């Protein structure tokens, strides 16, 4: 056997390949200049902030302007003046002729400890100990108990200044800060506290979220707690325990809701492309399920979403490597679809399904009708300084309507619908107001009872009646009732009286077993005619 060739040159020739993985420091200088034609590098030099950062043009998705903040009413103390709105302040006042200013932030994060520590830091003062923080005197702010903090020190180059602050122990917190020369602040302390008591959140709100008192510290005033409001242009009536989180418009999450326990994700994506089919297929794929056929989708229950009929899709499977997950999704029809999804462990989603559907029905954009009842500060019993927290559950929004309730109807407890009553085995009747188009609502109700959307001639021929002093249409349907909440009545009858009322559709809806409903028809008629707005 002969040698084929010398080995050494071969080895040497491959040695340079062994310079593996050398590390090098990253340069901090821009590299060499490269030139491109305008076609190769199409540059939009004039793209504005919104376009560049993909902040979509829906309400509430443009940078905040002071005019859009929480509407605050207050009794301005004598000798004080209200200041023009400023960014990140919901309202501010000044002691006339002085530097002492008072600022209200109706919704801030960071907790009591975080905010108080920040104030101390601003004044160069020592942090309060836990016991000091716990034993701070109490006062009232926006109808909620608040801790009263006094800090002295040097603030923004001014020595001898003082801060008197009120902060609620809610989530998020509300703060009212009074900052200025020490003597001015102390001379106006009573006026400051009077101002705090007089503060009320009112009017239409479309941006900032006033805080909701937690169940453990809401004042026992007998009034309803302020309803939590969203930070974006989409609002809804939050079920108990739910909260609204900052929206992520760039991620197509126009409204995000936190569910009780936090183990679930609920978000609204309004008017995006892709169509129903693309969205459905993506969802089923995410859950490892076969695609939903058009027929199945057509039979899915309908439920209102942003004033349009939407199909309710329920998926159960493995999602993001987690087994036993469930998704409830509402999707409107057309190329530009809106979706409202609720994903999480099956137990959580199942338990919160009804709340999810109620929230979906109440979702609206921008300045929808938002009622924010607060107890008038002037009449509310005031907690004495140092009074401990008083437990009170979070109450739903205050009722807007009242009516004469027929005998035999039983009120439904803890319902977010108004004048919600039950009768018979599975009959129910309630009053509600929803946005959107009335005819689309009619179609949703027809869909619930297995009937096709209403034809033009049928719509024109609907019998008329009077509701709340205005013209209303009547709907009388029979069939198999399947609601999006899962309620099923084989031989059902539905009676609806509905009318346009401003931007909303106010309606009275009764549904139940056909035989039982027939017996309740006169009562329903009486109920509708007695319906009136609460003064």
């Amino acid at each position, binding site marked *: 056997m002969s040698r084929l060739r010398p080995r050494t040159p071969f080895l040497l020739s*491959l040695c340079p390949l062994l310079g593996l993985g050398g590390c090098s420091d990253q340069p901090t200088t821009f590299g060499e200049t490269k030139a491109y034609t305008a076609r190769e590098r199409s540059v939009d030099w004039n793209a504005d902030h919104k376009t560049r950062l993909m902040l979509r043009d829906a309400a509430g998705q443009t940078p905040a302007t002071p005019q859009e903040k929480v509407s605050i009413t207050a009794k301005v103390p004598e000798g004080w003046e209200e200041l023009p709105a400023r960014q990140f302040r919901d309202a501010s006042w000044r002691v006339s002729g002085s530097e002492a200013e008072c600022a209200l932030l109706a919704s801030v994060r960071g907790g009591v400890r975080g905010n108080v520590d920040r104030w101390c830091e601003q004044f160069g003062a020592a942090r309060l100990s836990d016991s000091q923080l716990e034993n701070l005197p109490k006062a009232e702010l926006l109808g909620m108990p608040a801790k009263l903090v006094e800090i002295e020190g040097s603030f923004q180059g001014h020595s001898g200044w003082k801060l008197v602050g009120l902060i609620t122990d809610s989530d998020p917190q509300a703060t009212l800060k009074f900052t200025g020369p020490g003597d001015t602040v102390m001379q106006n302390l009573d006026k400051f506290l009077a101002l705090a008591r007089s503060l009320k959140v009112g009017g239409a709100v479309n941006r900032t*979220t006033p805080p909701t008192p937690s169940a453990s510290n809401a004042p026992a005033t007998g009034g309803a707690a302020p309803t939590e409001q969203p930070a974006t242009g989409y609002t809804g009536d939050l079920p108990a325990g739910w909260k609204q989180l900052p929206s992520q418009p760039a991620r197509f999450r126009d409204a995000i809701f936190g569910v009780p326990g936090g183990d679930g994700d609920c978000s609204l994506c309004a008017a995006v492309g892709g169509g129903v089919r693309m969205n459905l297929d993506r969802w089923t794929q995410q859950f490892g399920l076969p695609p939903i056929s058009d027929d199945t989708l057509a039979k899915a229950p309908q439920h209102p979403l942003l004033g349009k009929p939407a199909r309710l899709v329920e998926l159960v499977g493995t999602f993001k490597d987690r087994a036993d997950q469930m998704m409830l999704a509402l999707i409107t029809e057309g190329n530009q679809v809106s979706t409202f999804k609720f994903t999480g462990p099956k137990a959580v989603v199942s338990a919160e399904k009804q709340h999810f559907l109620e929230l979906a029905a109440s979702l609206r954009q921008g300045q929808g009708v938002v009622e924010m009842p607060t107890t008038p500060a002037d009449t509310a019993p005031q907690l004495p300084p140092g009074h401990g927290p008083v437990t009170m559950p979070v109450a739903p929004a205050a009722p807007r309507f009242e009516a004469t309730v027929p005998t035999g109807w039983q009120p439904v407890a803890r319902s977010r619908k108004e004048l919600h009553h039950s009768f018979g085995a599975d009959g129910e009747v309630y009053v509600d107001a929803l946005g959107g188009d009335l005819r689309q609502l009619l179609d949703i109700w027809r869909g619930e009872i297995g009937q096709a959307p209403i034809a033009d001639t049928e719509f024109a021929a609907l019998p008329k009646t009077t509701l709340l002093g205005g013209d209303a249409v009547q709907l009388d349907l029979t069939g198999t009732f399947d609601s999006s909440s899962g309620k099923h009545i084989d031989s059902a009858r539905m009676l609806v009286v509905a009318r346009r009322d401003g931007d909303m559709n106010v309606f009275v809806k009764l549904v139940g077993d056909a035989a039982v409903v027939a017996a309740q028809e006169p009562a329903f008629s009486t109920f509708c005619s007695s319906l009136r707005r609460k003064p």
Partner: protein
Amino acid sequence: MNAATATPSANPSTTRPTAPAPARSPLRLVFDLLASMKLTVVLMGLLALLTLTGTLAQTVDGIYYVQKQYFESWGLWANVSLGDDLTVPVPLPGAVPVLGLLFVNLLVGGIARMRWRQRNLGILTAHFGIALLLVAGYVKLSVSFSGHLSLPEGAIGSTIRSFQEWELALLWQEGDQVFERTIPGATIENATGPSPVRLTGEGLPFMVDVSYFQEHCTPALKTAMFQSATPVVDGVCLVGDPKLIGTWPKDRDNRLAGCYVQIVENGARGAMGMLWAPDLLPTNVAAPHRPWAFEAGGRKWGLELRHKVWNLPYDLRLDKFRKSEHPGTTMARDFSSFVTVLEPGSMPREAHIYMNEPLRKDGFVFYQTSFGPDPKRPGKFYSTFEVANNPSDKWPEWSCYVIGIGLLGHFIWKLSLFIAAENRRRHEYEVRA
């Protein structure tokens, strides 16, 4: 040659003591170690361990990070799960030193030390094939790059965007020409807090301070609902806190990086801007570059955080996208693209790109990767091609042929020896019979 084999044993019954083995030189020791079959076994074992732990880690960390941590590194701490709540960090060498040593081991033990004789030709050839495979991996690691090109039907494009690597680009325009200077994203990725990384450039009348880099974030309107950990610019801030924006996507492809930049001109801090890189989102298919614009030195400039881009030396036009579906569903059975390569001075070249049938052109390979609905034209689609430039693209295939030929040659050689031996035995048997 060791002492045992060097000692003549003319008379096996002789009990002369054997001479002590001469001490081996350090160079020889190293050579023997590198040529050792035991080293091969250890390295193969480590590779198996890396593959196993890396594969398991992908379920948590995503492919990009695992590739960097396990297969493009010198060493790592692998988290080995011993139960639901017990994870033990185990130190492991990265694939770079393991494969590097394996390459050396192959050269020294499998090629250099082996006698280059005809009978070893097959084994030597197979070892050459394995070496070529390792070299191909190194070349790919060192010089290759890949990205994607997404085109709506009828659109022409030539810009490839990386899936995972970011860069900060400084742009300015003079007439019809756009000039660009870039800096790798790795330069600024450590500037995650308020302390900035200062970027300079020869001839630039300003410097750029980059801060608050976040690998995944979203611009959010600053409201009183939350406190921002980052500066608020024109009412908007970049939010990266998973508590506010949800868990970050596992794969880096789906992360949307952002940072803040501030211009420093003549020592004075100037305008502050916010950069965000959503360029891989489907809604940005074929969208123009939208830099944050500022003025300095009497000229308009733009800064853009984006996925790293390369320009092809020619254009690609998507003529038609075709998709067929499984019967009764909208699930794609297959999808393909009809494209035309438009090169100055050449005739247009039409091509059909579909699964496992890429277009190869001037070192670039275009694979059909995905598609989606064209956000601007309902009912139409855009098509996405993965574009790879890898000089060693075909080397693994060639190495497989070389290894196959080597092994086949060796087997044939062994078979011929066996047949010859059998013939010899049969012949001897017949003679004896």
